[in-house]
């Protein structure tokens, strides 16, 4: 097992554990912090796949900007443990079981697939994640979706204004 593989398994485990912790933390602030951990682990994966630019953007945008906003909002709303609605215990169990079933199914099926056998992930290969290549691709082959996604953001902004502004 090479160092890269060890790193891969470590990051995957970290991402999974953090994600579970996001769900089960009672304190919302802790949840947000665990989410930051998830983003860090995923950024690590990006670096393993030779996509440094994506890794940095992921950190700056999600772990940096968005999560800080989340923290502010949670603190401003001043949530504490008592305001957390108590979920039905049975519902939780049912959720875990059904989610587990889905996970099992997907894992079984994907494991069967021929191209996935004996492979974990392609590492240090490809250069598409590098800033120069990504930029070229975005402004040549994928310029149409790039432009059209601006409509998506525009509508999201309009929506934010409509929802956020006082009447």
């Amino acid at each position: 097992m090479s160092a890269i593989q060890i790193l891969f398994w470590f990051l995957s485990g970290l991402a999974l554990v953090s994600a579970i912790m996001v769900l089960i933390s009672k304190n919302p602030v802790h949840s947000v912090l665990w989410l930051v951990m998830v983003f860090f682990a995923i950024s690590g994966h990006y670096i393993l796949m030779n996509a440094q630019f994506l890794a940095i953007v992921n950190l700056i945008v999600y772990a940096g900007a968005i999560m800080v906003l989340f923290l502010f909002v949670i603190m401003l709303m001043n949530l504490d443990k008592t305001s957390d609605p108590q979920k039905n215990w049975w519902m939780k169990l049912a959720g875990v079981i059904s989610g587990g079933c889905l996970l099992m199914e997907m894992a079984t099926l994907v494991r069967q697939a021929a191209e996935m056998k004996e492979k974990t992930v392609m590492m240090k290969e490809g250069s598409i994640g590098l800033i120069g290549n990504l930029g070229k691709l975005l402004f040549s082959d994928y310029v149409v979706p790039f432009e059209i996604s601006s409509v998506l953001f525009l509508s999201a902004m309009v929506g934010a204004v409509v929802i956020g502004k006082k009447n």
Partner: protein
Amino acid sequence: MNQLVYLVPLFPLIGFLINGLGRKSLSKSLIGVIGSGTILASFIVSLVLFFNVKNNGAVVVDYFNFINIDSLKISFAFQIDALSSLFLLIITGVGFLIHVYSTAYMQDEEPQHYGRYFAYLNLFVFSMLLLVMGANYVIMFIGWEGVGLCSYLLIGFWFKNDNYNYAAKKAFVMNRIGDLGFLLAVFWLIAKLGTANYADVFAHASSLTPFDVTAITLLLFVGAMGKSAQIPLYTWLPDAMAGPTPVSALIHAATMVTAGIYMIARSNVLYSMSAVTMNVVAIIGLVTALFSATIALKQNDIKKVLAYSTVSQLGYMFLGLGVGAYTGAVFHVMTHAFFKALLFLGAGSVIHAMHHEQDIRKMGGLKKHLPITHLTFLIGCIAISGIPPFSGFFSKDEILAAAFAKNPVYWGLGVAGAAMTAFYMFRLYATTFLGTFRGTHDQEHHLHESPSAMTIPLMVLALLSVVGGFVGVPEILGGHHELHGFLSSVLTTEVAHESSKNTEYVLMGISVAIAAIAIIFAINKFSKKPELQDAQGFGKVLENKWYVDELYDTFFVKTTLAKAKFLKDIIEKNVIDGAVNGVGKLVNYSSRQLRLIQSGQVGNYILFMVLAIVVVILLWVNDNHLYQYISKLF
């Protein structure tokens, strides 16, 4: 000329719409003019078409695709050939006269009902025209149903009288039984040949198996039995006399009831292929002719006598068809249309004069009060009795001659029927017009000849009854039988007359002599001493129409009602209602339960969705096993 064809049914349709929609606002005279005028217009166009056919042959005019399903294509098309053009003339010609007659006869009705009457009458003519003009069995069926509907409406025209409504209902139900046979025959044809067009059906008739042909023709004949009042479906026709008398003349004597004859004559190619059916038709026709003639002997209602006489004459026509004398049958349809319409209208004139008294025992001696009616009625009676040279003689003789060639027994029974016909017609004539008046003094005071709108049609029809037979003078009497030549393009050649000229002379002489004897006997018997008492013994059986109505009532109506009661009280209440309400309750119940899933909790929803995804993937993975299992199931 082809572009004129659609005008023939269009005029009566327009008349129907105007009179039907405007019955509350139009004046009586205008309604009468529109009602009669449209038929006159149709008659004129029909004349044009008739001569066109005579000179240039038949035409088929295709208007549009009426039904278009898969390979089955039924077009809305009219076929104008010798047969249909002849019927067009009868329908519109006699129809026009009867419309004119009606304007006076129905004068006492309120304007609104007057309009309704003419609207129905025009609709009837329209339907009848569709029936004969259609170029396939489907169009014929539309007309077939249309005339049935109009007959129903007109029999029950005076709908305030419940008995009339029952009579209308009876006519409709009996007709429907026959229609079922007709429909089945058409379905059978379409199933076997894939078409209902006359031309295609007759062209491919040889590809049918003998069983198919027999079944189809018998089913068609069931339809004809209903519409043309043959045993066992004849009982509606006498009851149909509940309608106004001109209606009886038009629908129940001259036109609608001959639809069955038209249909069989039209399908003669098929009928000629099945000897079984031909025999059935001949025997049913003969039995009907005799059976109803016996009933007519003892009836005392002037219209009932004529009604049974009509049934009897229709029987002769079927006898003609059954022995292969298609032309003879059509010929008899034509002459019968003249003299029977004449007789009915004459009876109407009498009834009019007697203020709606129809019992002949209360009449008598009307000769001097109603001279025109008397004379024309007498002509009608002579014509129907088959005395030369009146029209009835030629047509009846042709049928009887063909019957003799087929089987002398048919001929013998036919002549016996003819004798009875002559007897009861002159019994009717003598009791009504001869002797002394037996009604109340008040009635006698008001006796009067009918207005000219009624007498002129009588005179025209009387003239036709006298000369109408000359289009079919047989060759042995020095004629050419022009009708035969005209119709030969449509009707197959009849069975050859094997009998020699001498035999024919003898046959003719016998039938005329017997009829003449019956006439003299009847006049002698009834002009002085009419039967005023109710009949005794066997006569009572005849007076009560062999108790056929009672028989049907016991066997069919009562048992059906008993079954209906069982179905209504037991099956419907418990089973059907239970099932319907049960389904409703089940849906309601499941609705209430399903509603509970919609809890409003996002967590629940997502849980269900995840479960659904799990199931979908499971289905997807095991698809082959499941698919095989399910395909075995279905």
